[in-house]
């Protein structure tokens, strides 16, 4: 159990092993961390260090082999996949490197989707105002393939923040964008989380982006190497 009400995310001795042709492969090795509400944490490290796996486990997308994870006071480690999905609904936002907008839905429908899944009232009105907030009021009826990369990522931001999540998980949010567009998206993301005091867990290679966070955690070969405030 977490120690304090102030803690939104806690991982204790998290180990993740997978089967490989050469026997068991340890991707995360007894990782522990604690993230307070409203804190922005960057997880950095070289490719294959296990940072995306850690993000997946903290968000309940993947399960631990050993150890325990609590999100918003609820244990993820022993919950079934569907229970973890229910737990995420309305509580967790995501921004991905490859945007992951649903191609069959308009910008508005993409943003409204998590609201509808969480059974929130007035999903379309809220999605509309969220899109206006990210500067896409004119693009609500566009489908993803009619939007530029930067616009798609801003729709993804609107989708992530529409449900007023407790925690936003971002996996290389600017990784697929050029520097200028990436900076604009990053600005929008940090501004939105600041306004809402949303906890941010960000996985990135970009030191500039990492440095905008309150805490930077470095992963090396599946272990937490250092933590810098």
């Amino acid at each position, binding site marked *: 159990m977490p120690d304090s009400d102030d803690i939104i995310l806690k991982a204790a001795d998290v180990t993740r092993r997978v089967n490989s042709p050469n026997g068991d492969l340890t991707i995360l090795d007894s990782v522990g961390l604690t993230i307070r509400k409203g804190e922005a944490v960057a997880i950095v490290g070289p490719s294959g260090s296990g940072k995306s796996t850690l993000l997946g486990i903290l968000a309940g997308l993947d399960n631990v082999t050993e150890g325990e994870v609590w999100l918003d006071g609820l*244990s993820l480690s022993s*919950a079934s996949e569907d229970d973890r999905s229910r737990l995420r609904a309305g509580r967790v936002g995501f921004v991905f490197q490859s945007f992951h907008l649903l191609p069959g839905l308009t910008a508005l429908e993409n943003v409204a989707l998590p609201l509808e899944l969480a059974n929130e009232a007035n999903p379309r009105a809220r999605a509309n105002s969220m899109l206006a907030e990210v500067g896409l009021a004119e693009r609500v009826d566009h489908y993803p393939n009619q939007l530029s990369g930067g616009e798609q990522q801003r729709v993804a931001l609107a989708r992530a923040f529409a449900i007023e999540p407790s925690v936003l998980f971002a996996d290389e949010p600017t990784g697929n964008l050029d520097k200028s567009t990436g900076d604009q998206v990053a600005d929008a993301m940090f501004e939105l989380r600041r306004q809402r005091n949303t906890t941010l867990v960000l996985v990135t290679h970009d030191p500039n982006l990492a440095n905008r966070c309150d805490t930077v955690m470095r992963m090396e070969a599946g272990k937490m190497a250092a933590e810098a405030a």
Partner: protein
Amino acid sequence: MSRDTQAQGSNAKTRVSEGWWFALRMALVYLLRDWRSGELRVIALSLVIAVSAVSAVNFYTDRVERAMERQATSLLGGDVLVRRSRPLPNTIIEQARDEGLSATQLVQFPSVVLSEEEETQLVAVKAVGDGYPQRGALKIRDAFDLPPYTAQDIPEPGTVWVESRLLGLLDIEIGDQIYLGDRQFKTSALIDIEPDRGGFLFQLAPRVMLNLADLDSTGLVTEASRASYRVQFAGSAEAVDQFRNIIDSDTSGELDDVRIEDVRTGRPELRIALDRQGQFLGLVSIVCVLLAGAAVAVSAQGFAARQADASAVMRTFGATRQTVFRVTLARVALIAVCASVLGVVLGALVHSALVSYLARDMNFDIPAPGVVPAVFGLLTGMICLIGFALPSVLNVAKVPVLRVLRHELALPSVSGWLSIALAFTALCLLMVWQAGDVFLAMVIVLGVVAIVVMIGLIAVFTLWVLRYARIGIRPGWRFGASSLLRRPRNVVLQMTSFCVGMMALLLVAIVGGDILDAWRDEIPPDAPNYFAFNIQAQELDTARRVIGDVSSGDNLFYPMVRGRMIEINGEAVVASDYPDGSQAYRLLNRDYNMSFASEMRDDYVLEQGQWWAQDQIDEPLISIESSIATTYDLEIGDKVAFRIAGQRVEASIANVRVVDWNTFRPNFYVLGTPGWLAQQSPTYITSFKTGPDVDVTRELVKAMPGVTVIDLNALIDRIRGLIDAVSAAVEYVMMFTLLAGAVVLVATVQASRADRMRESALLKAVGANSGKLYQSLITEFTLLGAIAGLVAATVAGSVGWAVSRYLFELQYIPGAGLLLTGLFLGALGIGGCGYLVTRGVINQSPLQLLNDR
């Protein structure tokens, strides 16, 4: 969920949307986009074709079935006919009325009428009660020269309606008086069509119909008289069943001699033929559903693969597997419902074209379309969807949610056993439903599965051969051949589907055409359109002259004597020794026509024995029709006795003859030598052909009042109409089958489109020019089509041979032309179609293709 999670989960800030309403709302949001997506469009197209085929067939057979039932009830004069040799107790009639049935009583008996000029004539009297006939229409005319109309009532008391030839026989006019028993009646109308006259067409005595209320006053019906009592009942099917129960449950023995006939017991041959046709079409339409199902399965798999990301994203945002499953199912089902509705509408349009043949050529009164075929069509769409798409839809929900971070995590593969089990169950369900007979359905399912497996194995074998044969051929062609080898599962599916589709087409276009032509030729263009009988010996010259005036050709007159078989080799034969209603039973229970001839007619074929020589024509010898010989186990030399005009006469069987009943010439079960039968004072029968629009009836009846003329024009038109309707229906359904086969091509090509695009891009990037890529594509599809066409032609030829040999007893030998047609049709059709569907892949630039990935 852990206790921690459960305890705190109850305070969770939101409740997740998991219901069907949410799924349906999402499906509606997706509808337009889904319609534009390739896979769902193919699923929709497949279902439109399958549902159209099934609906067209079911609308058609349902209406024909009801039309036949109507016709059958008209032949009985009611929904149920009860016969008895004494009156049916009034309590029973009252009980029937209580069940909601309306009833009309009839009494029939032979008697003699007397004219005012004291001419006498044997007549068949029919006394009818109010409401006669309960079903069908009685047509009468007020005078010979006036047109017939449907009688709204029965003869007024004191009047009779008579058959026109009675006027000639008694030399009287309409309005004259006749005497029947103790009463005098005025003849007030001529009977034109009596719907329930049934098999008494050849009866000698003309009909006299009177009001039942007058019957007692004639004094003709007593307990000893040979009257037959009938009651026609009409009402709902439930009321009819209830009434049957009342009769069947009678334990007093009072009703043991009651005979009940309804549409199920009295099925005319035409109805059986149409029933079989309906059953056959239904089963072919299910083959069409099977092909469409294959296309649905392939497209659903492609659709599922494209939904993998969306599924993972939805689950990331909190959707459970169940929610994802429901949303995916609702999306596919919504498209399927729209497609099925469209299919039913198309089916209804197609069936109306088929029904028009029956309505126009067969003069059928076709009832309006029912709702059941539409419901069946919609259900077929749903069953097809569940049977063939469900495994893929289930799979969408199983995408690992981690795919949002690790794109290489793919859909788990669809369970092969689940797919086969579901598809097989769907197929069985539809077959049983369509065939209405579990055994027949299972036989056909196994037959279809056997053919499909056989073609599948041939496809596998062909690929195996191709693996070695492609070495040493030109690169562009080799790419094409190799392309087939790279997707063996797809290719086996494609080949099998094309084969089934092309087999259907070849069967119809070539084999079926020959069989239908052979059937059509059974009615030669010079087939007679009139029969005239009851011609007396002294009228022969007049008949020859009158008929000769309107008809060209050599019109033969056959002598005719009525009799029935009573003994075989000295032992009495009685109807009750044979199953009730069988041919053996019927032929012992009534008189039938026998004839005599000295020479053998050119269309007779002797199965056993010899035709009598000129010096034998006075000996008591007979020629027996082969089915009669089989029925009574008769052999050459057996002595058979007949009762003719109350006398027993005996003859030996000289030969057994095969008769072609379709010639429209007078045919006889029994032919005797002239010496044996000529002294039995025969009447004569002839058939002849007149030009169109020549009504010879009036001339003949005027010249020979006692003659009966039957106009065959309507019957010939009906049979030609039936053949046309059958051909059209078969062609339509087979066309649907071919379309379904084409959709499988589109579905499978679509499924491989992404792979093809990547391969094309890579080949172009490393320097392959468009020409080579086109060559490769054309080779691949032409080869596929040629092999499929060749196999289809071989199977179609074999099936056609078996069907014509064993079912139609026709000679059909599949020739090399069929194989060549299959080969070229397959190569051109599938080569061209495949090229059209995939050419877009080649027209794009390699960079665009690689970026699209």
